[in-house]
């Protein structure tokens, strides 16, 4: 079995209301010196496979088809 982590983040320039709200909240809580905050998603996925290259290709296909909205998001795939 292969364990993988897919990370999906917003493309540069795309508004991130969540990140913005968190920035503000961190300020309110007294954390100073916080610059930009951007929020993204991670997916921890188990694959019943032994072929790492195939698994990686498959994970990328999952990102393109489902996990990421490639119009506004980038993704990266990492095998454990």
């Amino acid at each position, binding site marked *: 079995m292969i364990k993988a982590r897919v990370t999906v983040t917003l493309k540069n320039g795309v508004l991130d209301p*969540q990140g913005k*709200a*968190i920035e503000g*909240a961190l300020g*309110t809580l007294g954390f100073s010196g916080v610059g930009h905050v951007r929020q993204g998603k991670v997916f921890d996925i188990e694959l019943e496979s032994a072929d790492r290259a195939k698994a990686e290709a498959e994970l990328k296909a999952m990102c393109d088809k489902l996990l990421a909205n490639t119009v506004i998001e980038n993704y990266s795939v990492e095998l454990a």
Partner: protein
Amino acid sequence: MKSAVILLPGLNRDRDMIAALTKIGGTAPLTVWQTDTEIPDVDLIVIPGGFSYGDYLRCGAIAARMPVMRAVAEKAAKGVTVMGVCNGFQILLEAGLLPGALMRNASLKFVCREVKLEIANAETRFTSRYEKGQVIRCPIAHHDGNYFADEATLARIEGEGQVAFRYGEGTNPNGSLNDIAGIVNAEGNVLGMMPHPENLIEDAHGGTDGRALFEAALGRAA
């Protein structure tokens, strides 16, 4: 009886709640803004529904850390009646005033419809005007109402009668554990619930099943 409604940016059922408290209690509630550090002496504090801070990060997470919530916690510790509806429930959980967490609905969709609510415990100060086992109608409107608690917590709140409301007769709209729709804290003075009793209090709403909850919480004589 005096009541107060907590106002935070992004809440949007504040006007519904104020209308309900005014119509049932006879006087308009006070309002308390997020940056206020003190809450006047009232008998009931209500955190209404909505999307405080857009519900960005997690539902209710940012709101729970605003100054006014410290004041709510102090009042709650002194035994003042506190009630959170929908986003208000989520905020109370994030603030640690109630146990557990609310996750995304199992359908992953926002859902707005009427459900049946079973009164699981009629001995709380919120449900005393209903009968145990009574089933009332109540609307819901939320995206994250899927109640979760670890086994030990769940066993405890079930054992202590902290479950106030359950979704009745196969109407669980969100996958909530044990069909939980609303709970009280161990002391019984803090209630959190997902459904919106404030939207079912007059004929124009098509029913008045929600009234008795406010009447009880406001402690009004029948």
